């Protein structure tokens, strides 16, 4: 009888102790949160869609070869990414200007008309240029220029790499046929990660 009562006493003791410690832990957490947010050294920048796409384009350049362009001695020239149309990606691409791709410095140009694409290795076509797509793709024909866009069904219409957003993550499709027509060589590692490949 006595032992039973003693056991009950200890059980109550530990449950209360536990609740007390739980409240302590929660209190400390709230304090640490307010400290960290007020000091804001743990500042995380936003992984916005444009920032991610700019990083993807930088990486695409590493996995694509421009045979004719690269056979000339181009180490002194910049690697040019041109942007057609208005798009928040311009800001993100400008932020990484100067980085080295394939031994050349990255340069970013906002193109005001189609004729300026001739000096670019990569052209990002904004969705705003949807209606001019046919003439743009005609202008890049037979030139070693990689076309990238995030407009709907870009690769179906002949573009080289099209971004697709799937549930908050970025994926991409590749049109191998038009890329090969432009004499571009896309490495198998990049093809392996593509969602869809049009051949």
């Amino acid at each position, binding site marked *: 009888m006595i*032992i039973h009562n*003693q*056991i009950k006493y*200890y*059980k109550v003791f*530990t*449950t209360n*102790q*536990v*609740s007390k*410690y*739980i409240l*302590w*832990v*929660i209190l*400390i*957490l709230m*304090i*640490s*949160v307010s*400290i*960290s*947010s007020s*000091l804001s*050294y*743990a*500042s*995380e*920048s*936003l*992984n*916005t*869609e444009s*920032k*991610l796409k*700019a*990083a*993807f384009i*930088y*990486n695409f350049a590493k*996995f694509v070869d421009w045979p004719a362009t690269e056979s000339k001695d181009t180490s002194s020239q910049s690697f040019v990414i041109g942007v057609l149309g208005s798009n928040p990606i311009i800001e993100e691409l400008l932020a*990484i200007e100067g*980085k080295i791709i394939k031994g050349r410095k990255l340069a970013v140009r906002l193109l005001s008309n189609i004729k300026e694409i001739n000096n670019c290795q990569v052209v990002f076509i904004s969705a705003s240029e949807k209606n001019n797509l046919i003439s743009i793709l005609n202008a890049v024909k037979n030139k070693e220029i990689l076309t990238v866009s995030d407009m*709907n069904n870009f690769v*179906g219409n002949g573009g080289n790499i099209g971004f697709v*957003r*799937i549930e*908050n*993550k*970025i*994926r991409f499709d590749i049109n191998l046929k038009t890329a090969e027509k432009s004499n571009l060589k896309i490495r198998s590692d*990049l093809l*392996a*990660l*593509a*969602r*869809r*490949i*049009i*051949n």
Partner: protein
Amino acid sequence: MLKSCLLLRKSGKYLNIFLIMKLIFILLCIASALFPCTALVGTCHADEISSGDLTELSIRDLMEIEITTGARKSQTLANTAAAAFVITQEDIRRSGVTSIADALRMVPGLQVAKIDANKWAISSRGFNSRYANKLLVLMDGRSVYSPLYSGVFWNIQDTVLEDIDRIEVIRGPGAALWGANAVNGVINIITKSTYDTKGGLVSAGAGKEERGFGNFRFGDSLGENACYRIFGKYADRDESKLTSGRDAADDWDIYTIGFKTDWTPTATDSVLFEGNHYRSDDGQTMTFPDISPPYSQTFNEDAKSDGVNFLASWERFISNTSDMKLQIYYDRARIEQTALSNTTDTYDLDFQHRFSPREKHEIIWGIGYRLISFETNSSPIVIVDPENRTDDILSAFVQDDITIVQDHLRLTLGAKFEHNDYSGFEFQPNIRTLWTPDKHNSIWASFSRAVRTPSRIENDVHTNLFVIPPGTPQNPSGLPMVISNIATGDFKPESLYAYEMGYRNEISKSASIDIAAFYNRYKDLRSHNYNTPFSELNSSVPHIVLPIAISNDNEGHTYGIEAFAELKPLSWWKIKPAYSFLHVNLSEPTEDSSGEAPRHQFSFQSNMDLPMNLELDLWLRYVDDLSDSDVNSYSMVDARLGWKPAENFEISLVGQNIFDSQHQEFKEDYLNYATYEVERAFYIKATWHF
């Protein structure tokens, strides 16, 4: 005297754990206030993302990153007018769990208890038991709830854990989209798209309780617009301990193999086809009643489960506000054991359509048909009558999501209609509202009616539970008394009226909090009533039968609060505290000791990214006692140390239940009366991507 000494030592252990954790937190808080990330730690691999330079990441890494905008961290959670929790792949990986069931321990509002080495009791907001029947569990859209046992066998719900994309848990009546039995919650296990699992994965490990396990997966593209993966896994697990300290006989092993393919024939269609096969041998100890002396027999056996399932679905994207989905699946589940053997074949066809008939309205509607065929073999202990039967369920649902004030106020009206072979026609309406005063806060409230339709257990199954020998105080007669569960066949559906509300706040990019509260009113809950005993004098061994009739005389209410937060006090340190409180008040506390719920539960996870590609993860859990079952409260600490010496290779060392050699989590007593305890465990695992 001895017992009180043991308990004193045990309470001392509690003190030590919390004292240590308290000291660590105080120290780290001081450190985080004084030193910013780069000074305290040499290289933080979260640095790349926090400093904004994503170009240093590989394409594989970039594909894993979720888009975050200024407004919301995760669109799905923020816009849900329900108590939702998402277990991500990262959560699973860093918790060190080796099964889906164990991963569920981090969800507030769920009761997760390990009965023995191969059996779990998992429920939402109370009513927990091995045969918890108020929770709907889906694996990629396929229901894994057993309609015979009215419960989920968690040991066979298995897949390569690295290929699980997320587990969505909604506590409360699962919005009109899902069927009856989603009374207290829905768990949706979603595996990764095959596009995200290209390449190979091999992982293997061994340890004390995980005697040995191996996983293999290979995925690749199939032609231009399709992709597939195949996988296989095997695990061999050790037995648990009895309270006495002796080994139990519940060791088990399981293998699962399967495949999944995704095909996007056009830009607007996607087709999915997947299949799985599993086989499990589960050790168990059964105690059967016997009308001759010694009136019971206890023996060990291996229950054998195996099954095969296929699922195919076709989704068509029509516009930003419209899409449709057609899904069909077949599931065969077999169990062979002395008490009851059964094969269940399920055929399910489902169609869903979402469209916007006018501005500010988004309607989702669907119809479904399910055919379930049972082939059951009774035994003298568990009698099923009729042994074979075929049931079908026809269901339809409709939901209108109305935008009352753009971006600020939404109202959702929904209803599910169902016709089944046990209770006829069922109607489950619900109404939800979501108020978003600004981009950081949201408040939701909902009212729903939910129904748990009768299952075979209440209609066709009679169990001889145990025998009270003659000449004992409970049975002074001269004949043995057999206590039997009798299914009377007029069991009504259980019903619930649920009132819920919740609040979500994204305090900053590094802190968010989510609170939900509920009040549930239950009617016609399953009850057990002793009927008049009668004698069987003509049988070979004359005996008395005391029948326990199953009926619907139980009712009552439950209420509770669930809260969780995600905080990043430092860029390399994430903490996830979660707490739940549950109060249960029923007119008839359930007869058997199962069905109990702990009042308080607390979970605390800490994930640290350390220099030299190390990860240190800690997980503390506290579960209150089940006083009527005599299961004591317990706290449990798991720790994981992960090391990534190369981009595609990872080693981890995991310790589970570190500070306690063994503890009991649940007491189930359906033909099995031993008490099992979960032991301290550790394992080491290596993972290689190629």
